[in-house]
C-alpha cells in the first residue's frame, strides 16, 4: 500500500466538505497562548548535501575501540545475510499487523520468533517482544503482581546482582503501583545471591522472586535451588536470562524441575548490533496459565472462514487500546524490526550455531582470565563459576585504568564501582567469539601497561 500525500486541490476539496476555510481552523480548540508560532532554538533548514557532510564530520569523531565490554549488550558476529534480508522493504517498513489480511508475512515472522523464544526458554508461550530487557523485567514484575491472586503484599525479592539499569527501570515503572521491591545482597565472596539474606524471608508472603542467570557479574547462580525455594514459599519466579546462553545453559522452564513462571531478558545478542545502546528488544515468555496477564502483542495461528491456516494478533482485549486503564500494560507495540533480525539470525545460525557462539565466547573469556592471572597477577573478584563475563579485581581504581586502556584503543570493560560501592577497583570484562587470540594478547599487554606507575 503506497503512501500518497494529498494534493493542494484535494485538501481544498476536503476542507469544503467539512465546511472549514483553512487547515489552521481545525486546530482552533487549542488556546492561542499554547500555540507556537515558531520553534525556539531550531536553526533554518539546510540541504541534503550539507546534512550529509555534517553527519560525516560528526561520525569521523567516533572512535571504535577493541571492545571488551559486555554488561548487558554484547558484540557478536552478525552474518551479513541477516540485515540484507531484514532491510528488504517488505520487512523494513511493514506496518503494525492490525489488519491480518494484509499482514500475513509480518505475522508469520513474529509467530516464528515466538516459537523460537518459547523453545529456547522451555516455556509455553512468548509474546511478540517488548522495548528492551530493562522494561521487560518491569513488565514481568507487574505481570507477576497481577497473576498472583493470593498474595497480598506485592513484595518482590530483587537480587542486587541483577543488572543495575534493569533494577532502576523496574523501580521507576512500578513505584506508583504500591509494589515493594526488596533488594537481596550478593555474597561478597561468591558474588552470587546471599543465601542467608534470602533465608530471612522464609515464611513471608512474597509475590515473586527475580532470578538472574547469569547475574550482572557474569556469574552462574544456583537457579534450581532458588526457583525451588520460590515455589516452596508460594511465590512466582521470574528468570532474567541471556537468550544466546540458553543454547548451552539449562533453560528456565526446567529450573528446579518444574521451571519458573515468567522469563524475560534482552534479545540484543541475537543479531542486533550494539548501535550505541539501541534499539534492542526485550523478550517475555510464560506458562499457559498466565498467558492472559502477558503484556504486549501476541500472534496466534488459526484458520480463516474458509478453513485455510493463517496468523493473527490475538488476546487483544487485554491490550491498552481496548482495556485502557486496566490493560496488562501501556505498551501496544513491539520491536518489529529487531524481532525480524533476531528471527533471521536464529534461523541462520540454528541451534548448533548458537551453541558454538556461546561456547566460543565462554572459552575466550576464560582464556583471557587465565592469561591475565599469569601475566598481570589480576584475578577474578569472586569465587564462582562465570560464563562469558568476569569481574576482575585490579587493586587500583578501575575507571583510571580503563581510561588509559581507551587511550590505546582498547575498551577494557565496565567499571563496577559505578553501581556497586566497594567495587571501585573491579572491572567487568567480556570476550566474545569476535575476539581472536591476538586480541586477547593485546588486551593483556595494554592492561599490563595501564597497571604500571601511579
Amino acid at each position, binding site marked *: 500500500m503506497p503512501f500518497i500525500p494529498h494534493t493542494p486541490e484535494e485538501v481544498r476539496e476536503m476542507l469544503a466538505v467539512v465546511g472549514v476555510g483553512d487547515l489552521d481552523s481545525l486546530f482552533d480548540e487549542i488556546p492561542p497562548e499554547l500555540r507556537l508560532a515558531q520553534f525556539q532554538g531550531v536553526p533554518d533548514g539546510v540541504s541534503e548535501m550539507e546534512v550529509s557532510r555534517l553527519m560525516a564530520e560528526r561520525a569521523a569523531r567516533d572512535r571504535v575501540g577493541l571492545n571488551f565490554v559486555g554488561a548487558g549488550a554484547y558484540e557478536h558476529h552478525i552474518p551479513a545475510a541477516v540485515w540484507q534480508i531484514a532491510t528488504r522493504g517488505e520487512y523494513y517498513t511493514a506496518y503494525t499487523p492490525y489488519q491480518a489480511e494484509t499482514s500475513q508475512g509480518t505475522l508469520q515472522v513474529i509467530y516464528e520468533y515466538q516459537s523460537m523464544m518459547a523453545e529456547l526458554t522451555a516455556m509455553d508461550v512468548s509474546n511478540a517482544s517488548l522495548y528492551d530487557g530493562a522494561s521487560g523485567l518491569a513488565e514481568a514484575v507487574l505481570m507477576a503482581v497481577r497473576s498472583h*491472586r*493470593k498474595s497480598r503484599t506485592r513484595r518482590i525479592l530483587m537480587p542486587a546482582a541483577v543488572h543495575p539499569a534493569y533494577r532502576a527501570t523496574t523501580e521507576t515503572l512500578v513505584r506508583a503501583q504500591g509494589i515493594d521491591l526488596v533488594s537481596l545482597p550478593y555474597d561478597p565472596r561468591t558474588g552470587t545471591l546471599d543465601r542467608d539474606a534470602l533465608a530471612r524471608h522464609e515464611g513471608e508472603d512474597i509475590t515473586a522472586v527475580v532470578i538472574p542467570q547469569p547475574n550482572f557479574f557474569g556469574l552462574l547462580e544456583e537457579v534450581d535451588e532458588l526457583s525451588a525455594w520460590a515455589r516452596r514459599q508460594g511465590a512466582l519466579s521470574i528468570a532474567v536470562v541471556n537468550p544466546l546462553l540458553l543454547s548451552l545453559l539449562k533453560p528456565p522452564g526446567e529450573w528446579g524441575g518444574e521451571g519458573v513462571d515468567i522469563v524475560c531478558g534482552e534479545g540484543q545478542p541475537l543479531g542486533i548490533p550494539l548501535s550505541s545502546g539501541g534499539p534492542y528488544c526485550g523478550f517475555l515468555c510464560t506458562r499457559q496459565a498466565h498467558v*492472559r496477564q502477558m503484556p504486549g502483542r501476541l500472534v496466534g495461528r488459526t484458520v480463516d472462514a474458509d478453513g485455510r491456516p493463517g496468523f493473527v494478533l490475538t488476546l487483544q*482485549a*487485554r491490550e491498552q487500546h*481496548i*482495556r485502557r486503564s*486496566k490493560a496488562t500494560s501501556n505498551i501496544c507495540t513491539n520491536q518489529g524490526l529487531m524481532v525480524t533480525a533476531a528471527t533471521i539470525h536464529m534461523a541462520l545460525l540454528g541451534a548448533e550455531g548458537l551453541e558454538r557462539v556461546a561456547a566460543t565466547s565462554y572459552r575466550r573469556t576464560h582464556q583471557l582470565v587465565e592469561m591475565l592471572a599469569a601475566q598481570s597477577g589480576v584475578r577474578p573478584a569472586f569465587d564462582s563459576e562465570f560464563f562469558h563475563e568476569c569481574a576482575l579485581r585490579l587493586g587500583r581504581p578501575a575507571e583510571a585504568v580503563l581510561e588509559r586502556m581507551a587511550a590505546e584503543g582498547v575498551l577494557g570493560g565496565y567499571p563496577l564501582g559505578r553501581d556497586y560501592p566497594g567495587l571501585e577497583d573491579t572491572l567487568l570484562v567480556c570476550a566474545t567469539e569476535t575476539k581472536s587470540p591476538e586480541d586477547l594478547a593485546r588486551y593483556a599487554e595494554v592492561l599490563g601497561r595501564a597497571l604500571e606507575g601511579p
Partner: protein
Amino acid sequence: MSEIPEELKYTKSHEWVLVNEDGTMTVGITDHAQELLGDLVFVEFPEVGNRYGTDEACGVVESVKAASDILAPVSGEVVEVNEALSDTPEVINQDPYGDGWIYKMRPDDVAEVDSLLDAEAYRALIEAEE
C-alpha cells in the same frame, strides 16, 4: 429487546442477582451484557474465600473484542464459582441466567440486595443507554 427475568435484581453494571434460600446469592451477567460483549472466550473468576466490597471488581469476562470487569453487587465473601465455564465460557452467551451463572457470594447484609434495581428499573436503564 433482551431478556430480563422479573424475579431477579440487577446492577447498573449489568450483573444480575438471585438470592438463594441458604442466604447466599448467585451472580451472573445479563442477556444485554452478553449481547454487547459478543462471543465469550474466557472467564477470570473471583477468588473463593476472598472478600469484596460493593462495586469492587472481582473478576473479568473476556470476549474477542473486550475484557469487562465483573463487579460485586454488594459486599461479601465469594463461596463458589462456576468452574464449568472454564471449558465452555460460551454458556454465558447461551444461558446467561441459568447455566451461565458465574459465582456465588455470601453477602454481609442480604437486605442490601433489596436496594438494587428491579426488572423494570433495569429495563429503563438499558433503554436509556440505547
